[in-house]
C-alpha cells in the first residue's frame, strides 16, 4: 500500500534539478501528485506530493544523493493525499505597493478576520533596488461574502497606502 509524502527541496537554482529528482523518484517506484515548483529570490523551491511504498527514511535515501550533488536541502513529511477534491476559489485579490515589512501580515490578517480562506498566494518583489515594489495575488474562498471583503480591502488600501483589487471568480463550466 503506497502512502503519500510531501517532499520539500530548497537550494540555489541550477539547470537539471527537477529532471534528476523526478527521475530518481520514478526509478524508485514513486508516483508523483500535485506540485509547486518555483524560483524565489534565486532559490529553487519544490513542494511535491510523492506516493511511495516505503517510509520517510527510505524516501529520504532515494533523493539524498541527488540533493547532495545539487547542494539542496530537503525534507520529507508523511501527509494525507487528498486528490480530486479541489476547492474552487471564488475571489481573486491583488495587493501591491512600495515594498516594506508588514504588507502580507496586514493584508492577510484583514482578510482572515472577514472570513476569507486563502487557497493560493503568490508574491513577487519587483521595481528597482532603490524602490522595490511588492506584488501579491491571492485566490481563495469568501466564506462570509464578497461585500465584507471589499469594504475591508478599501480601508486597508487607505490606511496602509496600498493598492488593492478584488475580482470575483465566476468559473464557467462548459
Amino acid at each position, binding site marked *: 500500500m503506497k502512502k503519500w509524502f510531501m517532499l520539500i527541496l530548497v537550494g540555489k537554482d541550477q539547470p537539471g534539478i527537477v529532471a534528476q529528482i523526478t527521475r530518481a523518484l520514478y526509478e524508485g517506484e514513486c508516483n508523483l501528485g500535485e506540485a509547486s515548483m518555483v524560483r524565489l529570490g534565486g532559490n529553487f523551491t519544490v513542494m511535491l506530493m510523492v506516493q511511495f511504498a516505503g517510509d520517510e527514511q527510505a524516501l529520504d535515501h532515494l533523493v539524498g544523493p541527488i540533493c547532495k550533488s545539487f547542494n539542496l536541502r530537503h525534507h520529507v513529511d508523511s501527509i494525507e493525499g487528498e486528490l*480530486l477534491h479541489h476547492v474552487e476559489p471564488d475571489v481573486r485579490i491583488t495587493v501591491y505597493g512600495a515594498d516594506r515589512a508588514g504588507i502580507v501580515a496586514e493584508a492577510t490578517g484583514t482578510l482572515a478576520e472577514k472570513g476569507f480562506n486563502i487557497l493560493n498566494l503568490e508574491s513577487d518583489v519587483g521595481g528597482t533596488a532603490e524602490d522595490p515594489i511588492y*506584488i501579491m495575488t491571492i485566490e481563495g474562498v469568501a466564506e462570509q461574502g464578497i461585500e465584507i471583503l471589499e469594504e475591508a480591502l478599501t480601508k486597508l488600501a487607505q490606511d496602509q497606502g496600498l493598492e488593492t483589487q478584488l475580482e470575483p471568480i*465566476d468559473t*464557467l*463550466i462548459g
Partner: protein
Amino acid sequence: MAVLDILIYPDPRLKQVSKPVEQFDDALRAFVRNLEETLEAGPGGVGIAAPQVGRFERIVIVDVSCKPKIKHHGRLVLINPEITSREGTVIGREGCLSVPDYTGNVARAKFITLRARDEFGKAHEFHMERYEARAVQHEMDHLDGLLLLDRLVSRRDLFRRQVKESSPAKPHPE
C-alpha cells in the same frame, strides 16, 4: 428525450475536429433536445458541444441566463457557428464537463460577432460580450478538438492582464 453520456478526457475522441451539419431535419432536432437535456442534467454547466457526447458535428448549446446581471441572448442552439469578429481579451476561469475536478484560467475575446444557424437551418447573427462570449468560445473549441487545457495561462500573466483589463483606456467597439 435522453440524457447522453459525456466523454471525459483523456478520451481521444474529444481531440477530433467535428464536421458541419448538412441536414436540418427531425433527427437533428431530436438530437438537439437530448443535448439540451444533457446540459440541464449536468452540474452548473452553461454550455455543451455535440462532440462532448460523441456526436462529431458542429452543434453547440449555450445558455448563460442563470447568471445574474449579465448581457445574454437566452438559450441558444448554434449550428455551424462561425466567429466573424473578435475584440479585446479577457481572462477568466473555466471548467469543463469533460475535464472533471480541474479549472484553469483561459484568455478569450471579450466581444465577438457570431454567425450560426438554428436547428431549423435559419441563419442568425449575434453580438456577444464577456461571459456569454466566453461560453460560446469554450464550446466552439470543442468543435475543433480543443479543450481549456490547450489554452491555459499562467497566474503571472493573469496579474498583468488584470491590470490592463481594468485600465480606463479600453474602448467599447459597439
